[in-house]
Each structure stands twice: as structure tokens, then as C-alpha cells.
């Protein structure tokens, strides 16, 4: 197998984790970081090799006669046999999106590894406490995420969903002495866990009907996988209906909810903004570029099933479109730079989700080969570009935070003069996300908009509007940080560009953000492996660039120079502004449900019930036995006269009764 060395891509991070976790604690801090980076570098190189071989190689089984890229299962041993048919395998499967994700994950992870060498040190260059732990967890996360994308079956995805969830938990809670970090990590874990519950139920339903977890059947067991023939998979579960929907629709909806939890779709998005309590490179890696797109990846993975089950797709579409707008609206008013970026991430992921969902807009298109692959391709392409420029933005934010020691906008202002490289990098990121050609975001977002317009004019306009908002809030952040007014130095030293370990990743990522748009994604990443022939739709492209420019212009007008316009606008619709600032009170709602309803309303009564009623019952049994025993003990008085008295009366009664019988 030419691709068999893919296993090294997965194994190296795992070994790094075990090594750094078990041995690293005793080692010099910096050394562990450098070891981590070297390990990651090897992984990255290998992953690039794998991806390039896959995309451009012509090895056996990779490309079919029609030029369609096949999924390649590199190896696939049994891991856990539930029954003869239901077997969880731990394998490596490469297909276009998996190969693409390998590149995304390793690239961003490499950048973050490198960046963290600088970021996780104080200003004197001393590594922070827990440096080794940090690198171990990063390796663990990378391993989990790579395992997720190369999964050969649904259950493997679930397993690695859990793994990334835990690595995310550990990394968010890295500063475990800060209550906010603990709280945020707990929240992130529990919310995603709740979503995973739905995912699990979805898997249970799906596997019950199809009797397989595998995406593609293999020669080993001779059982067709889920995606070998999606129509028949759906047909197996289609007949059974529950509350008006087929079992397959339920299963797919539940699986989507699982993905929505990881991908922070409304209303399961609440963990993501809080997750920014973690170190910023972690936010860049996990909560911007890789883990949060796991949900999108999941839906994309099961895309052949989703396109058939229209009901599930509609739900995704609505949730995605709403989330995109909702998060963009909140991002417009956030004052914390990382939170604003987090909401921007939510909004962009929602773009991807919507893009996937609009793919099956027209039932007719299913018949026409390739007709509905545009949205899918666009979504994956956007996933790729977004990972690059969002990681860039987060790393820039990290550099800024490292320089000014605060997350709040009003501590920043006017940093352009002090941190030019960061400023330029950030600007490139903003231009990319806003969709200005020729930056990466333009190409991918444009395709998404085209796909949305294909579904319907309404969807298109809605998404265009959100795209405009994106441009606005990104440049709001940019202007507020780097311009607005002169910087007031709060700390003992002036902010400046950071050391090369932190700057180099910025430059690399900025370069990628510029050029990534020219990657021929349409030829590489399509849902069925066949190249997709697309061309730029100038109407959509032109209008979206225009809208983006309007957004940028508005942001320029409001935020380039210090003025009172934003304040006045906020005052004019104070209620709306506050609501948006407080994220439309979703956190309060959750807080109410978890604390008041579940904790106070369910857990406490149950605990009380247990102690009072159930335990009380058994204690009562003991109590009654005790009381009765003591009562009976009194009869055993030891007084012979008492005994005789009782005996005598008893004998008398007996005599009386006998006498009566005898006499009458």
C-alpha cells in the first residue's frame, strides 16, 4: 500500500502525547516544547505527503476509470465487536475531505506548536508552569482530530469526537487555578457531551437498521457500508416511521445535533465563547480551525445519506442560516476580541453548514450528476480557507493579548504603530474573511453564496447579508484594535511585535490566506470524488464584493477614528444593543435550566427523596423491629407472679371456654 505510512501521521502525535505526558514532566520545559514541535513537523510533512499522494497520485484503487477519486482504506482492524455484523473498527480511510483535513489540521497544529513556544512564556522568556502538560495535550488533541478525520466508520468518529472533547476540556481548563477557566471547560464539555448523546442515539438508530457502522464495506466482512449505496441504506430505515418522520430522518437529525454541538450551532453554541478562557493558541487550533468544524465534517461525511433525506437537510439549513446571522449580530457588539472572533467563528461555521444543506436544494438536481455538489465543495473549501485565516486571526489576537495583557478592545486601540507585522497579518485575515478578492475567503464564500442562490433567492440574500455583516464586524475589530485612537501604554513596557516563534506562524498563515483561494478545490474536494466544473458567477461575486465593501466602509466610517457615532447608535437602540451584547440571554437561559430546573428541581429533590423516603423506609423497618422487640422484651419481665397471673388467666379462659362447650 503506498499510503500505509499514513498510520505514522496518527501514531506520532499519540506517541508524543504519551512521551510528553509520562516522561516530559521530568524534563526541561523548553526541551519538551521543541520536541513537540519536531514531532509535529514530522507529522506535518508526512501528512502533506499523504494528501498530495492521494490527490495527485495514481496508485492502485485511488482513481477509478472515470477519473473519480475513490476512498482508500489504508488499514482497518477490528477494535471492538458488538456482534457479528456490528463491529467497531479503528482504521484509516482517505478520501478527498479526509486528505484535505489532514492538511488543515497538521498545518494549523504545526503553526500553533511553533507559536506556543513564544506565547506560553512570560516576557523574560521563561516557560509557564505546566508547559510540558500543554504540549502533551496539544499532541493529544492533534492525535484525536487526525483520528477523527480518517475514521472509517461512524463509531470511530464518535470515539474521536469524545477524544477531541476531552482534549478541548483539558486545554480550555489549562489554567486550572482560574475559576473562569474551570467553569468554561466544564461548560464546553457538558454541552458537547449533551450533543454527543444525540449523536450516540443517532448512531444507535442508524446501526439498528443498517447493521453497520462502516462508511464503506470492505472485503473482510462482505457487508455493505453506509455509503456504498446510500439509497439502500436509507431504504432500510426509511420504512419505519416515528412521529411522522422515518427512522433515518431521526437518526440523521440526531447525528446532526451531535455535530451541531461540536460546531457550536445555535442553540448549542454557548460553550464556544466561554472556551476562549483557554490559552489563545488553543483557541486558534481547537476553537477556530479544527475541532469546531468536526460537526461540519460529520455532516459532510454522511452527505450521501443527507441528500436523500430532505427533512434532515432542511433542519440543518434553517439552523445554519439562523446561526450565521445570530452569531454575526452578536459579533458586531462584543468588546472582548477573542469573544468577537469566537462569534465570528460560529457564524462562519454556520456558513459551511448552510452551504452543505443547500446542496440538496432541488430534488431534481439529485438526478443530475454533480448538480448538487457545489454547496458541498464550497463548504469544504470554506472550511479549508477559514481554518487558515481564522487561525491567523486568533494567533494575531494572541500576539496582541500577549503584548497588552488584556482581552478587552478598550485596552488596545492604535496598535498599528507598535505592531506592524501583526497589524498587516490581521488585515489580511480580515480581508480574507470579508471576502475581498483575491484573498482566500472570497473564493470559498463566493461558491457558498452561489449555492445558496441556487436553492432560492431568499436564502441567497440572507447569506449575502450575513456576509456583509461579517465584513463589518471584522473591520470593526480591526479598526478598534489598530486605529481608533492613540494607544495608552498601560504596562511597564510598550507593546511590540512578538518574537519570531510567534511572528513566523503569522507570516506563513497570512501567505496561505492570500494564496489558498487559488487551490483548485473544485477538482479535488467533491462529494463523489469526481471533479466539479465550476466557473465564477460574476453576478453573485460582484454583488458580494460590493456588499463586503459596504460593510468595510461602514466600519471605517464608524471605527477608524475615535468618534461618538457608535456610542450614539448603541444608545439609539439600547435594548437591542444590550441584548446582543449579552448574547441574547442564551447563557442566562441555560443557567436557569441547569441550575434552577435540573440542579435545584431534579437533583436535589431526588437526593432528598433518596435519603428521606427510600432510606427512610429501610430505616423505618429497622426502627419498627427495634420498637417491637423492646415492646416484647417487657413481657419477659422475670417476675414469676406476672407469669403465673397470665398463665392463670389464660388457663381460666380456656377452662371457661371448655366448660361452655361441655355444658351447652
Amino acid at each position: 500500500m503506498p499510503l500505509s505510512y499514513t498510520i505514522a501521521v496518527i501514531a506520532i502525535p499519540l506517541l508524543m502525547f504519551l512521551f510528553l505526558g509520562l516522561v516530559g514532566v521530568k524534563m526541561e520545559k523548553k526541551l519538551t516544547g521543541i520536541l513537540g514541535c519536531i514531532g509535529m513537523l514530522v507529522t506535518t510533512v508526512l501528512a502533506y505527503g499523504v494528501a498530495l499522494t492521494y490527490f495527485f497520485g495514481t496508485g492502485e484503487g485511488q482513481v477509478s476509470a472515470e477519473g473519480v477519486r475513490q476512498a482508500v482504506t489504508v488499514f482497518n482492524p477490528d477494535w471492538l465487536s458488538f456482534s457479528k455484523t456490528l463491529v467497531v473498527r479503528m482504521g484509516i480511510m482517505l478520501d478527498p475531505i479526509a486528505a484535505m483535513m489532514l492538511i488543515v489540521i497538521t498545518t494549523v497544529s504545526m503553526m500553533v506548536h511553533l507559536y506556543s513556544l513564544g506565547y506560553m512564556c512570560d516576557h523574560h522568556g521563561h516557560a509557564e508552569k505546566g508547559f510540558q502538560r500543554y504540549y502533551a495535550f496539544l499532541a493529544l488533541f492533534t492525535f484525536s482530530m487526525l483520528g477523527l478525520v480518517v475514521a472509517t466508520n461512524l463509531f470511530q468518529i464518535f470515539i474521536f469526537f469524545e477524544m477531541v472533547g476531552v482534549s478541548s476540556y483539558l486545554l480550555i481548563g489549562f489554567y486550572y487555578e482560574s475559576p473562569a477557566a474551570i467553569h468554561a471547560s466544564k461548560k464546553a464539555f457538558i454541552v458537547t457531551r449533551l450533543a454527543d448523546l444525540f449523536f450516540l442515539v443517532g448512531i444507535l438508530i442508524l446501526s439498528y437498521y443498517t447493521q453497520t457502522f462502516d462508511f464503506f464495506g470492505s472485503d473482510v466482512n462482505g457487508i455493505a457500508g453506509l455509503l456504498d449505496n446510500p439509497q439502500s441504506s436509507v431504504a432500510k430505515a426509511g420504512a419505519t416511521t416515528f412521529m411522522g418522520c422515518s427512522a433515518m430522518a431521526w437518526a440523521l437529525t440526531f447525528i446532526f445535533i451531535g455535530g451541531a454541538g461540536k460546531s457550536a450551532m445555535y442553540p448549542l453554541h454557548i460553550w464556544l465563547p466561554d472556551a476562549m478562557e483557554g490559552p489563545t493558541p488553543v483557541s486558534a487550533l481547537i476553537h477556530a480551525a479544527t475541532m469546531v468544524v468536526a460537526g461540519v465534517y460529520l455532516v459532510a461525511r454522511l452527505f450521501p445519506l443527507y441528500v436523500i433525506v430532505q427533512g434532515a437537510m432542511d433542519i440543518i439549513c434553517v439552523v445554519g442560516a439562523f446561526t450565521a446571522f445570530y452569531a454575526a449580530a452578536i459579533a458586531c457588539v462584543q468588546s472582548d476580541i477573542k469573544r468577537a472572533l469566537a462569534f465570528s467563528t460560529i457564524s462562519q461555521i454556520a456558513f459551511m453548514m448552510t452551504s452543505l444543506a443547500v446542496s440538496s436544494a432541488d430534488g431534481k438536481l439529485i438526478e443530475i450528476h454533480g448538480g448538487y455538489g457545489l454547496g458541498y465543495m464550497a463548504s469544504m473549501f470554506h472550511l479549508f480557507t477559514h481554518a487558515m485565516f481564522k487561525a491567523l486571526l486568533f494567533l494575531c489576537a494572541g500576539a496582541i493579548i500577549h503584548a497588552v495583557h488584556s482581552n478587552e478592545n478598550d485596552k488596545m486601540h492604535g496598535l498599528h504603530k507598535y505592531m506592524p507585522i501583526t497589524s498587516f497579518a490581521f488585515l489580511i485575515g480580515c480581508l480574507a474573511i470579508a471576502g475581498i478578492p483575491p484573498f482566500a475567503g472570497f473564493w470559498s464564500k463566493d461558491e457558498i453564496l452561489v449555492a445558496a442562490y441556487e436553492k432560492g433567492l431568499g436564502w441567497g440574500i440572507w447569506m449575502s447579508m450575513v456576509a456583509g455583516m461579517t465584513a463589518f464586524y471584522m473591520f470593526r475589530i480591526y479598526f478598534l484594535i489598530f486605529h481608533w485612537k492613540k494607544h495608552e501604554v498601560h504596562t511597564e513596557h510598550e507593546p511590540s511585535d512578538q518574537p519570531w516563534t510567534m511572528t513566523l506562524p503569522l507570516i506563513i498563515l497570512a501567505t496561505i490566506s492570500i494564496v489558498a483561494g487559488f487551490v483548485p478545490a473544485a477538482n479535488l474536494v467533491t462529494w463523489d470524488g469526481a471533479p466539479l466544473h465550476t466557473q465564477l458567477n460574476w453576478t453573485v461575486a460582484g454583488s458580494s464584493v460590493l456588499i463586503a465593501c459596504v460593510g468595510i466602509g461602514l466600519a471605517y466610517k464608524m471605527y477608524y477614528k475615535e468618534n461618538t457615532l457608535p456610542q450614539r447608535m448603541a444608545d439609539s437602540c439600547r435594548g437591542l444593543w444590550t441584548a446582543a451584547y449579552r448574547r441574547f440571554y442564551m447563557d442566562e437561559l441555560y443557567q436557569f435550566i441547569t441550575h434552577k430546573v435540573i440542579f435545584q428541581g431534579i437533583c436535589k429533590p431526588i437526593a432528598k427523596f433518596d435519603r428521606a423516603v427510600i432510606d427512610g423506609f429501610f430505616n423505618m423497618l429497622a426502627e419498627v423491629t427495634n420498637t417491637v422487640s423492646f415492646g416484647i422484651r417487657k413481657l419477659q419481665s422475670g417476675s414469676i407472679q406476672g407469669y403465673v397471673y397470665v398463665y392463670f388467666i389464660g388457663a381460666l379462659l380456656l377452662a371457661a371456654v371448655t366448660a361452655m362447650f361441655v355444658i351447652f
Partner: protein
Amino acid sequence: MESVGNIIMYFVIALSIIVFSVLTVTTRKILRSATYLLFVLFATAALYFQMDYPFLGAVQIAVYAGGIVVLFVFSILLTQRPGDDAAQLISTRRWLGAVAAIAGVGVTGYALFSYAKFCGKQLPAMGDIDMATLGHFLLSTDKWGYLLPFEAVSVLLLACIIGGVVIARRR
């Protein structure tokens, strides 16, 4: 028709049994109680004589009146200081005892009287029982012989003697 002497004798016996019985259990001086018991036992012995069981009457006087009452008197003297009165009884206790006793007497008496016909049986004639016959019965192993109980009682008495010695011995 009984002889008048017999009837008078009966009344004397019956009255003394009743009166002394009651006095035995009501007097507060324990020594007097033992004395009244002696009288009851004598009356009983008299009753046996009247029943034409002279041997039994003799045994009654010898063992009971002569032995047991003496034992009682000795033990009373050993445990009681002179002039000690038994403590005043708690009235509820007394009442309960009285109720039990009277109820017992009532029930039994009722049963007796409801068998009045049967109870009204006259004293039949009976030949004298000479000591030889008695001795034969006591030591015979025939159908109506009592050798086994006799021996059992003798062993019991032996055990009793030993037990008495062991218990009463000062350690």
C-alpha cells in the same frame, strides 16, 4: 343419711379449712401465716381420716405438718427479723390477685354446680385398707403397682437432699 357426728365433723373441718386458708394469705405476719398453714394442713389430715384413709392422714401430719411447716418456720426465722411486718400491698396488685382468685373460684364453682347431679353423689361404702395391701401396691410391679413411681420419688428425695446440702452449704 350420715351420722350427725360426721356432719358436725365435716362442718368443723370445712370451716377451719376455709377460715385458716383465708387467714394464711391475708395475715401480714409471715410467722402467723405459717401457723395458719399448719392448721389448714391439720384440717386436711382430719378430712383424710374422715374419708377413711388413715394412712394418708398420717402421712399428711407427719410430712406436711411435721416436716414442711417446721422447715417453713425455720426459714422464716432465718430470713426475717422479729416483728417484721410484710409490707403493705399495693392495692392494684391486691385487686388483681383478688380478681384472678375470685374469677378462678367462680369459673370452677360454676362448673361444679352445673354438674350438681353428679356432685350430689353420696359417700359409698368402702372396705378398710390394711397396710399390707398398701405396701403390696407400693412395691409391686403388677398392673396397679407403684414401684416405679416409688423408686422415682425416692431418687428425687435423694437428689433433693444432696441439692439441699449443696445449695445451702456456705461457700
